[in-house]
């Protein structure tokens, strides 16, 4: 077990390193373009340009540039030239909203997916199952920001049940926080519930055909016990892996569309605004942190997975 953890950690460190190099390449080395121009932003004056060239060392060899960039990012000293603000500070300011979104939504989507997945699997091909199948296909086809826009239109504008976007920190008002988060949570969850419930359903169907489930029935166990203790325990395992990846994705700013629509001022929205301004430094930092978080979280989930599924530890 320890060897598996060690192997996994080493492999994730390699990936992290490669991710940093790749990000570096995207932003500073892409052929045909003056990277200094990109960093400085649109409409930068020649003075700013000169500062950028000096600070970022574009006249230095590549590996020096890389080291510099990494240092800047990790000491939080990257500055956005469009607004002259420290990127890290902005990022940190947006974290509470993004984390609230991620945690709340993932709890909703996980429980929703389990309920629907289990219900669909009880009578395969039955009305519930077919209906859920169609709904699932629809839910993953509609862009999340569309659901959000429509929801806002009907539930916040036409009938003011929910506030029209914005974020209220929990420390300020619990109910205010809740009130503002419900719509974003639901919108983000819809697509995930659709996808996850189908994956779980397939997983359950596959597990129920396994020999050990037949043994469980032959032991005279109740249907409930067989479902929860034997079937679900095994069929939930792939779901948890998926969940780790998506959860990390949301925190890493992947819920950019929902955040922007609901004006949550989270990390994702910060990234979106930077795109609009073609302001590269924030995007660079967010992408770097986002990916680091994804790699770390997926490694953690994989290790947990290995605890739950002992056979995995034997694999390369």
């Amino acid at each position: 077990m320890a060897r598996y953890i060690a192997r996994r950690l080493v492999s994730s460190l390699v990936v992290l390193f490669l991710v940093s190099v790749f990000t570096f390449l995207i932003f500073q080395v892409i052929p045909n373009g003056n990277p200094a121009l990109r960093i400085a932003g649109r409409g930068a004056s020649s003075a700013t340009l000169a500062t950028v060239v000096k600070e970022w060392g574009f006249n230095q060899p590549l590996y020096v540039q890389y080291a510099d960039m990494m240092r800047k990012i990790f000491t939080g000293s990257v500055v956005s030239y469009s607004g002259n603000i420290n990127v890290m500070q902005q990022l940190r300011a947006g974290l509470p909203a993004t984390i609230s979104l991620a945690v709340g939504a993932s709890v909703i989507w996980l429980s929703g997916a389990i309920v629907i997945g289990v219900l669909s699997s009880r009578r395969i091909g039955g009305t519930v199952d077919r209906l859920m199948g169609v709904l699932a296909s629809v839910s993953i086809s509609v862009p999340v920001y569309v659901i959000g826009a429509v929801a806002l239109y009907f539930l916040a504008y036409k009938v003011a049940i929910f506030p029209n976007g914005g974020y209220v920190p929990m420390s300020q008002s619990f109910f205010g926080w809740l009130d503002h988060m419900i719509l974003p949570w639901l919108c983000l969850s819809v697509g995930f519930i659709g996808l996850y419930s189908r994956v779980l359903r397939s997983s359950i169907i596959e597990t129920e055909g396994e020999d050990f489930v037949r043994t469980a029935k032959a032991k005279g166990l109740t249907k409930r016990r067989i479902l929860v203790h034997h079937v679900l325990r095994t069929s939930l395992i792939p779901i948890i892996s998926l969940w780790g990846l998506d959860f990390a994705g949301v925190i890493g700013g992947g819920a950019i569309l929902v955040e922007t629509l609901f004006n949550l001022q989270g990390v994702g929205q910060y990234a979106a605004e930077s795109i609009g301004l073609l302001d590269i430094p924030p995007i660079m930092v967010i992408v770097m942190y986002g990916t680091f978080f994804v790699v770390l979280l997926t490694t953690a989930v994989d290790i947990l997975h290995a605890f739950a599924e002992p056979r995995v530890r034997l694999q390369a």
Partner: protein
Amino acid sequence: MLHDKVAIGSVIVFALIVIACLCAPLYARFVAGTGPDANHVTEVITVGGKPTDVVSTSGIPIGPTWQSKFLLGADSNGRDVAVRLLYGGRTSLAIGFLAAAITLTFGTLTGILAGFFRGWTDTVLSRALDVIWAYPVVLLGIALGTALELGGLKVGPVVISGNSLFVPALIIGFVFIPYLARPIRTQVLLLREREFVAAARLLGKGSLSIIVSEVLPNVISAVVVFVPLIVANAILLEAGLSYLGAGVQAPNPSWGTMIASGVALITSTPSLLFAPVIMLVATTVSMNLFGESLRNALGTTTSMTGR
């Protein structure tokens, strides 16, 4: 599967949408009488007998007229929504298909090479896939989108300008590669242990020949199942990126950019949002439903997690 009404229905819907978009120039010329970029801000047309401003003085454009001109209304620049919808469809669909083609080609190739040759090839390719996989899809999309936007791409003799439609297609195609490559790799890993591969080797067949004759046919069915999924996701991602401004750039119409402007005007002219949304959703839903029917028919259980 030919009996599956849902599958047939979705194929028909999808085909209709594609045909409609292909006919965009015809519609523009013969029905609406205007192009997708033609600006009619100051014009006045007759609706129901009354002369109405295309774009009112307070900046609110006209809603659906259900006439040949401005069938679905106009946007804030006075452009014909229906015409833009069809032209935007061409853009979105073209990018979607092109991206899907890129993903399918490179994803399958990578998956097969990594799974078949193992060793160093596998290690290197798998790490590369892990790197792409680590980026949240939208973030990678916008990273590449913004990076390429300013200067375009120049690799050797190939020059693609920042404004070209190839850029979003390339980006989207690239982003989805691991989603296909990983399951394919797992499949190939299993396949190469099978007897018929060992038999082919004993017959003295070279690796390339084995891949083509033994591995490829068995992998095809898994790949085929992914096709509708990838097309649908590519179209969705394009819409998302364009919505954010990291994909197709204005004034090129695409469903994504139209949704962006539609969201802004939702309170005054909801049709601006609903028109592209309905087209987009109809396209992706039909693709996804078709994909689900395809999966049921072929009975594969390969998942997109690739583990």
